[in-house]
């Protein structure tokens, strides 16, 4: 058996690949579920029901998908240009930090101006966080994978320091959490009496916008060329360094926006458990979407559904809700193989 590159990948294969990967992941994790002694089909049934079975479940899944779309886009735009940003988690927290600072009452702005300032501030904070490793990469040749990973820990400690210090909520009963943002900084709710907020609309609009930039503008053209062959791009006269830094700002900005939107749209204040690994799950989202901005939306909805559904399932059954994390990790690994089969053909001999 050997692999032979396909000259052309049909659209059907590109769509079927992630679906096949997800099915494979579900099948593999069924073994784990069976190990716990729970009936597999009932467990998966509860998972689906918990994700989309009711109006409440659906809005919960959409709420959970909002930051995942943004971190998924963050990973997708970076990976497209071969900038291995694994630090979306840290950039998310920096964005959230900026949001509570800007939205905490220090700016006396009207509603229509304040929440955009809060979101943009969050994006800027996230972007600048990734700019550091990107500069180290283009200037000193430091591998950005390790630096972005390590920065995640630095950022969390930094946030922890502020939450126990300068930003600590005096009314917080001693918990390490920030004071809530003012009302004018909060994003409007999309559906009354649910947690679903306008962040979703922003995330969807950004997915479409990034898709247009990618396919229709010289920016997208440069990004693709630099990602596929930086040497040839540089030879042709493209500003490779600028493309890298620009991509870093954009990618980090999207992750920072995810954090700011969680604060301004959902939580209202900042704690150290704001993100259950949205930054890392974003990588899975981007890979399932094969780095396509519109695909990110679908993949984020799927991953969000898994997390929300698994929570519901684990309340009813003796299956720890970490099954969701296992499912997500397995999906990523299966997707890698599926992506290979989409690009190559398996031949005998």
């Amino acid at each position, binding site marked *: 058996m050997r692999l032979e590159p396909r*000259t052309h990948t049909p659209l059907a294969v590109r769509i079927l690949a992630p679906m096949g990967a997800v099915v494979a992941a579900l099948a593999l994790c069924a073994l784990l579920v069976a190990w716990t002694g729970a009936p597999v089909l009932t467990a998966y049934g509860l998972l689906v029901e918990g994700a989309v079975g009711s109006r409440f479940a659906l809005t919960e899944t959409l709420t959970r998908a909002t930051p995942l779309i943004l971190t998924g886009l963050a990973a997708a735009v970076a990976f497209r240009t071969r900038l291995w940003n694994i630090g979306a988690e840290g950039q998310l927290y920096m964005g959230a930090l900026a949001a509570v600072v800007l939205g905490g009452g220090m700016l006396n702005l009207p509603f229509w101006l304040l929440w955009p300032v809060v979101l943009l501030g969050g994006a800027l904070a996230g972007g600048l966080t990734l700019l550091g490793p990107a500069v180290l990469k283009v200037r000193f040749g430091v591998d950005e994978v390790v630096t972005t990973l390590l920065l995640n820990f630095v950022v969390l400690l930094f946030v922890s320091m502020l939450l126990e210090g300068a930003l600590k909520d005096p009314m917080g009963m001693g918990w390490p959490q920030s004071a809530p943002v003012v009302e004018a900084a909060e994003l409007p709710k999309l559906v009354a009496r649910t947690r679903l907020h306008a962040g979703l609309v922003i995330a969807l609009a950004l997915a479409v916008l990034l898709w247009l930039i990618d396919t229709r*503008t*010289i920016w997208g053209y440069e990004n693709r060329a630099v990602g596929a*062959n930086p040497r040839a791009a540089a*030879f042709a006269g493209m500003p490779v360094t600028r493309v890298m830094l620009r991509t870093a700002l954009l990618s980090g900005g999207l992750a920072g926006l995810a954090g700011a939107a969680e604060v301004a749209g959902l939580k209202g204040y900042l704690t150290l458990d704001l993100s259950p690994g949205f930054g890392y799950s974003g990588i899975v989202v981007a890979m399932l979407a094969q780095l396509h901005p519109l695909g990110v939306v679908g993949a984020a909805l799927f991953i969000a559904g898994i997390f929300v559904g698994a929570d519901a399932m684990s309340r009813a059954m003796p299956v720890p809700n970490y099954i969701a994390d296992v499912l997500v990790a397995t999906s990523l690994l299966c997707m890698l193989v599926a992506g290979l089969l989409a690009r190559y053909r398996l031949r005998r001999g």
Partner: protein
Amino acid sequence: MPSNPPLRSGGGWCRRRRVGATVRKAMTNPIQPVVLRLTGITKRFGPLVANDGISLTLHAGEVLALLGENGAGKTTLMNILFGHYVADEGTVEAFGHPLPPGSPKAALVAGIGMVHQHFTLADNLSVLDNVAVGTEPLWRFWSDRAAARRRLLELADRFGLGVRPDAPVGDLSVGERQRVEILKALYRDARILILDEPTAVLTPQEATGLFDTLRRLTADGLAVVFISHKMHEVFAVSDTVAVLRGGRLVATRATADTSREELAEMMVGRAVKPPTPTPMVPGEPVLELKDVTVLSGHGRPHLDGADLTVRRHQIVGIAGVSGNGQTALADLVSGLIVPDGGTLALKGQPVRAADAAAMVRRGVARIPEDRHAAGLVGSMAVWENLIAERYRDPAFQRWGVLKRAAARRTAEEAIRAFDVRCPGPDARTQLLSGGNMQKLILGRTLAYGPDLILASQPTRGLDVGAVSYVHGRLLEARAAGAGVLLISEDLDEILAVADCIAVVYHGRITPLLPHDRVSVRQLGLLMAGHWDVLSEIADAA
């Protein structure tokens, strides 16, 4: 090593060249056993048939030249023989035993050694490591380094292949690396040695040295397959010649019984008229390097006080063994780097910043050395590659939005004008053949009436038709008023099209030498650093 016997009477051309070998052959050939037999080898890559039912035999003590144009299937055939590829049909038999397909290890055990065109050496490891790896059983508690060193030095001594066992391969010259490759095979008791285009990277004198080594090897009873597309090498070294064309074996001849004309016709299969340059009067300078230095960060600088002038209506050929500063020279003119010392001027204006896009705007057409790695983005469409140097022109974008229709139209025109064979402007570039990729680069760069053309190895790996196409286009541009800087390791190419030749050695460049006043021998000596020859050339002029 005894020298060849003195000249004896003999017939035809071979009296001059291969008397010793001919005499030896006459005595020994009939009883020499067959060591290698290829039968009906066929190999397809998708729709391309690289080898089509090829059968060959090789005898002990024989040098078989495998002659053919680029793309004729020589390298594929040898990669099958050595187990890198698996043949779709056919068998390989070494010393009477069939060779299992797809196993370099089996080939090694059977006594086959291969010297690849691109050396397979690890730069960071020592010569001894490179030679000894894989020769001992993997699961042993120690390596017998002392014995390995002794054996390596003994072999080096016996066949005149001097090497330093502890030097990292990265520090060696090209010629030394080739010696290491040959020693690797000998160390493993190879009885059949395959050399893939071994002279492509050598000076003419080094090539002669290699031929001497090969004679010592065959005198020792080894059989050699010598892959080449150069006629004079075939006559210099081989006993038998097999000609490949388009994946088929055209003929096998005793070298003594054939002629250059016959081989040329069999090899090409059609008359290819090489473009003949008409003499032209050079115009004003378009490129001037004065005392240019490019540092390398460690050791010897890439360029070391280099002077060079290229004028309009002039093709300047830069000859030299690779790694002597050609890359830095090409990068300078490409706009990728600026000199660390000295000045670089374009049409009289100094170049101060490394800006590839600015070089394009100022009328430099650049053909990169490695079209896959630096020239094209393989995963992108043909039209996207065709606008890669000019996508910021108002013709192709407005407010940052690509004018895709306009870009595609331009691409279609270039595809027509430069005869790029491809399904259309939307085809993925990596699916094109090497020749068509090069035409794509020509189409991207020559269509805009350049003042200066940088052509780095413009015909490397191309078949004969594509080579003459590229040369024809360069000569056309020269007639239209462009100056051409042709950097090539192929001395034949430089001699064919250049008006003036300069040799680069250790980062220094000789004055321009008119192509009709300098001999191959003199060029070879210059390439090896014997610049005292310059006075000889000056005296003759």
